[in-house]
């Protein structure tokens, strides 16, 4: 952070449009990637992979997706866990019924199916907005929950309604140790982040943001609201559907009918709010926060020498979640990503603040 971008002039369109225009940022990013790929797999225990890093990577994909919809397009959704469920069950059925498909193909198809369902439930957004839309997406949540719990075909007539996935194989590479899962998810996340980053700075992203800021004005200047809103729903649901498939296949392995319930939807929303609406980096922060907080809350009393029961811990978790949401909305409505940006700006000028 102790660097200046002085002297780096953009002399071509290509250099003006690259994703990381500053040399130091590029070096930093390369260093970070090298660390994630070359150092982390060798120094971290399996427990940390399974309970921290794998959920974090998957939830980040989901949070990115929700952020595209809520943060960039301004359409609130309380039912995104349902689209995760669609992705997970679509992937399960595809893998089960068409076993010759590669997992990557299954993943993409699951995302596309989730996108189709997302567009279907996004249609009301053309007529209603804001809180009304929130309730409309609740309909998606409860209806889809019900469908997967009741229609036996989706769970392959399993008696308990829970499903189990086959081991993963990508181009002959069997992904089953925690490290392999981590590396696979890392690759997926990087691809999705790059795509999201380029979407939001392209014309689609600008159409979304104009719709978010004032939809009537956006329409007046020639942005088609139907196109903007439905693409936001489609792409967001695609991300979330893929995240759901990964959550089912890579993280859970087997899951119950109500694994993707309203609480998960609200958690996704919290990730996006706490991390920062309209910020891709914020999705990372938010997901990390939501994954780490319960673990810290479970461990902290033991470290402090005052163990509390698990029920108590889960209630405290609820309370702290709630209090933090309100706290963030009051103190920093733009979330952790904004704090990060402020810190960065301060450091850039340090030690001469003017």
């Amino acid at each position, binding site marked *: 952070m102790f660097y200046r971008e002085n002297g780096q002039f953009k002399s071509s369109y290509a250099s003006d449009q690259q994703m990381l225009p500053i040399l130091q940022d590029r070096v930093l990013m390369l260093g970070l990637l090298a660390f994630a790929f070359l150092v982390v797999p060798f120094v971290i225990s399996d427990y940390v992979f399974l309970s921290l890093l794998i959920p974090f990577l998957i939830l980040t994909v989901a949070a990115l997706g929700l952020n595209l919809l809520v943060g960039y397009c301004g359409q609130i959704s309380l039912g995104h866990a349902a689209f995760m469920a669609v992705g997970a069950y679509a992937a399960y059925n595809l893998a089960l019924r068409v076993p010759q498909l590669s997992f990557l193909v299954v993943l993409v198809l699951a995302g596309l199916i989730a996108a189709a369902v997302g567009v279907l439930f996004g249609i009301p957004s053309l007529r209603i907005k804001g809180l009304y839309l929130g309730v409309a997406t609740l309909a998606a949540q409860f209806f889809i929950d*019900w469908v997967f719990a009741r229609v036996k075909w989706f769970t392959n007539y399993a008696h308990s309604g829970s499903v189990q996935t086959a081991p993963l194989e990508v181009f002959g590479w069997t992904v089953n140790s925690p490290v392999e899962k981590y590396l696979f998810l890392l690759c997926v996340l990087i691809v999705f982040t790059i795509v999201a980053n380029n979407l939001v700075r392209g014309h689609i992203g600008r159409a979304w943001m104009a719709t978010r800021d004032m939809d009537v004005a956006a329409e007046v200047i020639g942005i088609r609201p139907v196109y903007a809103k439905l693409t936001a729903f489609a792409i967001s649901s695609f991300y979330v559907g893929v995240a759901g498939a990964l959550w089912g296949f890579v993280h859970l392995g087997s899951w119950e009918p109500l694994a993707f319930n309203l609480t998960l939807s609200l958690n996704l929303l919290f990730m996006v709010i706490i991390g920062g609406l309209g910020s891709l980096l914020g999705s990372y922060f938010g997901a990390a926060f939501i994954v780490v907080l319960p673990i810290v809350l479970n461990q902290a009393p033991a470290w402090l020498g005052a163990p509390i029961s698990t029920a108590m811990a889960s209630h405290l978790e609820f309370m*702290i979640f709630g209090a*933090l949401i309100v706290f963030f909305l009051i103190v920093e409505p733009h979330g952790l990503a904004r704090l990060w940006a402020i810190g960065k700006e301060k450091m850039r000028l340090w030690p001469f603040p003017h």
Partner: protein
Amino acid sequence: MKKNAPVIALCAALLIGLLMPLMTGASPPGFYVEVLLGGLMAGVLYSLVALGFALIFKASGVFNFAQGAMVLFAALAVARLAERMPLWAAIVLAIGIMIVLAWFIERLVLRPLVNQDPIALFMATLGVTFFLDGFGQTVWGSDIYSIELGIAKEPVMVLQSIFQGGILVNKEDFMAALVAAALVGSLALFFQKTPTGRALRAVADDHQAAQSIGIPLNRMWVIVWAVAGIVALVAGVIWGSKLGVQFSLSLVALKALPVVILGGFTSVPGAIIGGLIIGVGEKMAEVFLGPPLVKAFDLAGGGIENWFAYVLALLFLLVRPQGLFGEKHIDRV
């Protein structure tokens, strides 16, 4: 007239759906009336929770997701306090707690967020929901508790002369409906006749105008949140005595969301009628639509109740976005 066509079509479809089981003779009339009454009773309770939503939305423009959590919190408070003192004392104390809670919410959540987007306020109430759920269960415990209202729960047979076999009516349900009606009546009186009620209506009409003639906005918010808290308490007590006080109460209370959508956010009569429509609709759907659906698609059980209200609200939103009684919204650039 042409614009209203889809609304009329939807209402007609609903009505036909309602009368279908009776006309096709799929159910005996006595049973049909029983289901209808059951739906109305459930609807009264939905109306009560929805009333809390509508009150707060009217007065402070906040879409209060925490209403369900308030119902749970109040019911837990009454159930646990009633273990140590007579029921009436527990209820009075719980009302006090709800008023204090309203004051805290206004102080700590609403006041710092004045002039924020409605979405930000809504998300703040999501935070309040989580906080209240956790807080309530930390303070009061998280088991299933019961509230004894001292009303007989055995159903009684009535109208045996009209319907073959009579109709089973639960006395407690009947009392609940009476209490709810009394509450709605006294709220209407409070809003129409008292100075505070008039001030509240002024705030609901126009915040700035109300403030400029000297109505203290902050105090009005405390009052309206306290009133909503008391409404939540009544709903919680009635529901708690029916189903037992437990966490799922706050999920049931979520059904008030489609109710306010159906009735229109800002309308008190809308909340009541919407609640009745949803209550009757979902009971009817569960009883008469559920079994054929299960048979046709080989489902693993019914449970249409879980989503019917939401999907009905969604359909209504598509044809009439402002709800049955809501004000039409016009955007300006």
